[in-house]
């Protein structure tokens, strides 16, 4: 097993201890698995709570801080957290203005956050929820669990986080989060599977020289396997898959996201091709972010997320943010 770990059982707890050591500006409750910005609850501010399985770092704990999440609940690797964590997080960040749960659309996440919302409301916290389901590789139909939540999570958390920091009320923060989620679409490819600590071997076999199109962020295979494509071809395929679903009129935010093991050198090169195809399709680009943000352990590959941004979303995107993984303006 090629892993820098002690034993699979303590991977998440170990990471939380390491996170705490590196980030004194966060309160890390290792036992209960809740990461909260140290100054929470911030008076008169809507709390923003997200969470999900571990293995997607820096998502979500790396996005906790001023201008973004108030708290994050990391589950076991690729396993959504339990309601107890979310209830605890909600209680820790609620200033009385309510809490928004940002939920990636996976059966597990949805069910656990739903349960948590009920429990938190029982404890007197006003809770709203927004679902992120941006992955166009999955048909959103009666015959699936709906589209998966992937890269757009970053856009939702950043932009809703900025709205919350401005002091906007829960309904507004929720509406903005919903707008971002609704205007964002993603498509991902894998050049290798990933290896979870619990399993210790790759989640699927992908011979060198082939790639998976339309993968998610949990080491599951994609919709289709093909002979290896060039960066140019992949960019064409991914962007066109998105544009089939989302016809942006406004300039877009672009996230070119690495799945974990793809070198930044390749990721920037891939971004060049993504920008080229967007220009060819007449899509204007307002901002571009390139990096490993919503990962799938040691999977090689990348995803593209586009978010159609109006003036307000752009202003909120540009607003200051100070988290371990995303920082600007302060």
């Amino acid at each position, binding site marked *: 097993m090629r892993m820098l770990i002690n034993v699979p059982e303590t991977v998440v707890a170990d990471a939380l201890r390491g996170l705490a050591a590196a980030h004194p500006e966060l309160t890390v409750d290792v036992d209960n698995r809740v990461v909260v910005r140290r100054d929470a609850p911030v008076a008169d501010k809507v709390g923003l709570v997200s969470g999900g*399985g571990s293995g997607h770092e820096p998502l979500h704990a790396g996005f906790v801080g001023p201008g973004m999440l108030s708290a994050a609940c990391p*589950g*076991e690797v690729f396993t959504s957290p*339990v309601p107890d964590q979310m209830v605890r997080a909600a209680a820790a960040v609620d200033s009385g203005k309510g809490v928004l749960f940002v939920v990636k659309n*996976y*059966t597990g996440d949805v069910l*656990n956050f739903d349960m948590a919302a009920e429990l938190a409301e029982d404890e007197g916290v006003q809770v709203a929820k927004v679902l992120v389901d941006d992955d166009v590789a999955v048909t959103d139909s*009666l015959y699936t669990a709906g589209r998966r939540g992937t890269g757009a999570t970053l856009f939702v958390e950043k932009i809703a986080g900025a709205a919350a920091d401005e002091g906007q009320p829960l309904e507004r923060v929720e509406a903005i989060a919903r707008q971002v989620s609704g205007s964002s679409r993603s498509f991902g490819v894998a050049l290798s599977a990933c290896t979870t600590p619990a399993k210790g071997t790759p989640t699927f076999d992908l011979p060198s020289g082939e790639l998976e199109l339309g993968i998610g962020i949990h080491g*599951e295979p994609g*919709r289709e396997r093909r002979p290896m494509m060039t960066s140019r071809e992949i960019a064409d395929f991914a962007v066109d898959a998105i544009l089939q679903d989302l016809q942006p009129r406004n300039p877009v935010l672009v996230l070119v996201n690495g799945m974990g093991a793809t070198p930044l050198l390749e990721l920037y090169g891939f971004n060049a091709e993504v920008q080229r195809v967007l220009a060819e399709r007449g899509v204007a680009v307002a901002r571009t972010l390139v990096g490993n943000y919503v990962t799938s352990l040691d999977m090689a590959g990348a995803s593209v997320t586009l978010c159609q941004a109006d003036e307000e979303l752009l202003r909120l995107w540009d607003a200051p943010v100070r988290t371990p993984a995303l920082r600007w303006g302060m």
Partner: protein
Amino acid sequence: MFDADFFRRWMAATTASVDREAERLTALDSPIGDADHGSNLQRGFLAVSAALEKEAPATPGAVLVLAGRQLISTVGGASGPLYGTLLRRTGKALGDAAEVSAEQLAQALRAGVEAVMQLGGAAPGDKTMIDALVPAVDALGEGFAAARTAAEQGAVATTPLQARKGRASYLGERSIGHQDPGATSSALLVAALADTAAAKEAAGE
């Protein structure tokens, strides 16, 4: 009649069998899932067993409610709320009785399975745990052994299906040809029930 101790033994048997089969469950969850089902249930049922030992609830219903709550609080993922709801709602349906009949158990389990279907929105044929649980509950009238067989057959019968719920559904047609991990673990749960009942009978209780 079945008392709280019987239900504790059922849970213990499930814990042992999930612990034994964890790797296989995770392996089944690799090609069409995210390779965590085995460790999820292992973690959950170990917590169930620990809690039952510590609190020792006095009624069948209380045993299952506690077990369900433990699963919800420790498993996460899709299977945590679903299995948690199964046991919790089965337990609730059993009420406060100190002992329950086989028929009461069958009825309560049906209520539990229906709660799972409502929570997760899955119907038979969607390639989920429902495909093992529904046949098991249907067969329970013919006895525990029949339920066990039905659950196992139901699990195996998920292989040719295309998934319509859970993360296997993301794969579309590629989900065909793989046995569903949740249906497989449901068969383990039912098998543990049958084993526990057989042991009870053998002991002449």
